[in-house]
């Protein structure tokens, strides 16, 4: 009896009538699929640690220049509209919720909800980028509020304002790049989820992409008050 069960278990990897996630074979150097999942998740958390440290450099630069040019920074943040920033914060928070729910959907094998939530997350990411470029970067760049040597805004109150814009563009620009990468990962998950690649026995990619997305969200949660709200 037990041999048939074992054979049945091995056969499921090659049985085309089963959904893709059940056919998933874990890599040969792991003993179980569980062990592989744990390893991948540990790897992702370590990677998130590197991302935090990457942004730590930017936060350090922000802190240092804010301490050095308090006037320019106080003045600079007046130019940012907290309403656009706030809207983007809400969008990212909603997307983090849908990303977390997507992982739950995969665990519970709710395929339709999984696809829907992944798609909502990706759309929220694109919306964030759209708002950022159309309503924030665009109008500011066109009136000369630019970083460093490009700065040409004629009504600057403080000679150190270019520095504020350098920090602003570097921090939000690198964050925006992360949003794009995160949305790309989730889009890939969505594409695979159309083929039922994720389910209760295998959802590593959804879990890790969602973790990455939460980090992107978290960094914005820090950037938003530092840049928009503190004067």
């Amino acid at each position, binding site marked *: 009896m037990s*041999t*048939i069960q*074992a*054979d049945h278990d*091995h056969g499921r990897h090659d049985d085309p009538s089963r959904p893709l996630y059940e056919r998933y074979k874990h*890599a*040969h*150097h*792991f003993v179980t699929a569980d*062990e592989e999942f*744990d*390893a*991948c998740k*540990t*790897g992702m958390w*370590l*990677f998130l*640690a*590197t*991302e*935090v*440290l*990457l*942004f*730590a*450099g*930017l936060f*350090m*630069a922000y802190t*240092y*220049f804010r301490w*050095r*040019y308090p006037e320019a920074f106080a003045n600079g943040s007046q130019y940012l509209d907290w309403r656009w920033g706030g809207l983007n914060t809400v969008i990212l928070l909603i997307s983090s919720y849908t990303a977390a729910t997507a992982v739950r959907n995969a665990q519970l094998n709710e395929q339709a909800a999984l696809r829907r939530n992944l798609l909502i997350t990706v759309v929220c990411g694109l919306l964030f980028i759209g708002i950022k470029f159309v309503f924030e970067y665009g109008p500011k760049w066109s009136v000369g509020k630019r*970083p*460093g*040597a*490009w700065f040409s805004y004629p009504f600057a109150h403080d*000679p*150190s304002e*270019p*520095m504020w814009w*350098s*920090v602003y*563009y*570097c921090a939000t620009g*690198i964050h925006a790049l992360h949003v794009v990468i995160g949305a790309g990962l989730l889009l890939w998950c969505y594409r695979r989820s159309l083929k039922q690649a994720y389910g209760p026995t295998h959802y590593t990619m959804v879990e890790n992409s969602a973790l990455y997305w939460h980090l992107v969200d978290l960094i914005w949660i820090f950037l938003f008050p530092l840049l928009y709200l503190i004067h």
Partner: protein
Amino acid sequence: MTTLNAGSHGDHDHHEVPYLVGKGGVWATIVDWATTVDHKKLGVMYLTAILALFAIGGVAALMVRTELLDPIRTGPGGPDDVHGWMFNVGQLDEATGERKYTAATANNTYNRLFTMHGAIMVFMVIVPGIPASLGNFFLPLMLGAKDVAFPRLNLLSWYVYVTGSIFGVLAIALNGVDTGWTFYTPYSTTTDVGHWRVVYMILAAFILGFSSILTGLNFVVTVHKLRAPGMGWFDMPLFVWGIYATAVIQVLATPVIGITLLLLVFERVFRVGIFDPSLGGDPVLYQHFFWFYSHPVVYVMILPGMGVISDVIAVHSRKPIFGYRAIAFASLGIAGVAFIVWGHHMFASMSEVGSVVFSALTFLVAIPTAVKIFNWIATLYKGSIALTTPMLYALVFLFLFAIGGLTGLPLATLASDLHLHDSYFVVAHFHYVMFGGTIIALLAGLHHWWPKMFGKEYSVLWANIGCLLVFVGFNVTFFTQFFMGTQGMPRRYASYPDEFQLYHQISTYGSYVLGAGFFLHLLVFIHSLVAGERAKENPWGALTLEWEATSPPSEHNFAHQPMLKHGPYDFDLAVPPYWKASDWPLPDKAEVERVRLSH
């Protein structure tokens, strides 16, 4: 029948082929290696790339030394009257079509050569040196695993490394990078205007950082998740501890250099001005960012070396390592302290209070390091020492690294540092720890594990002669530089006053001996690969798991999942008394016990 099929997943009979055996024709073998996810092949590929880059960096160093034999000097005839027999490469005057030799062109060549030496050796050789080559090959074997946790990431990491190296070598070959390996602003943002060469070089370091992060991440997860059944944290060989501590630093420090170099590229390409004082930025901020990574990375360079030495000394003196836990925790201690001492690179550009704090913290590094040195010496005490090539190199390591470590103390002391800062004393000090530490440890490890990696023996006699040449050459080259440094010879200069001539000449001749030593090692290795005798499975009689695999290991490392029967250094418990390495393999436990009792 069905049972047999079901079992095929765990059946390893078809995996018994050594990993080095080719897959059909030449082309198929090349494709197989280029797309392999086998950690052993990747280890060998890393080793090849690293040794090739070591040769390039080494030649650059020899050229630097040769220039200093008879340096550029301007004679009485003004700026065009230039002496010095090397590097009078000149500059083509486009108006007249003549080649013009000036001190400036010769100086530029010199600056580019030492940049080439420094950047290649630090970013492409010493940082990935031991972890990526020996670590990749032996970490899974020592843990009794079939592979690292993420084999495909490992392959990606190799390609990223090669891409970064190509970028770097390209930037150097285009002949424009003379910033030194530290890329200090504002020089690195204002030099080479109108070209992309410095940007290439910075991007190269950025890309190499990615490779470093991916490898480190892979190793941390491997150690956490893939230890053999029964292997607890304190049953791991100390080499694994060294690699683990290294990997943690790589993961936590490298992102900071990532953002720093990225900002430096933004600075050059978009002129954002974060490090540019004319736009309100701060060049010293760059130095803080740079050393926040580059100081911990000093321990990325040395910790795997310390791991190698721990293993080599225990195995070749056939004694349990003294203070296993102390060595393991000292590795983590060094990794921890590494993050809070970066300021000691900026004593000259920092407030006094800041300097005092960083100076005090820097002395802390000496404690875990000394713990290790004392433990190694205590391991040697009353051991049955075999003077094999790896053991000779381990002894060389102890000697050189102790000098390197002790000469670090006058540099950590504020008063003496202001005198020695940026002098040849610093150059000699970090060569004693980087070269005398890391490269010597790499050589120790390479000679220790060579029979396992390639299944071939090498000529111990000639390897020992090579070791002697390296030892003598190294000391003649660099010990002399301590004297020059204390007398005020600054680093990075192509010329010097006459009173330094003798020192420089001794140093240069020493570097030739050193070069000859490495060349001899290369010949010994090539001879071993071509005509070496078949190596035994466990030529040194070691107790760690990698020696239970065949030599060279089979494709999937072990025929069966290895079980831990004894600790990595239990020479007193697992090995019968008066056993030699040639008496291997071990008898069973009852027999060992019988022989022990009868003695």
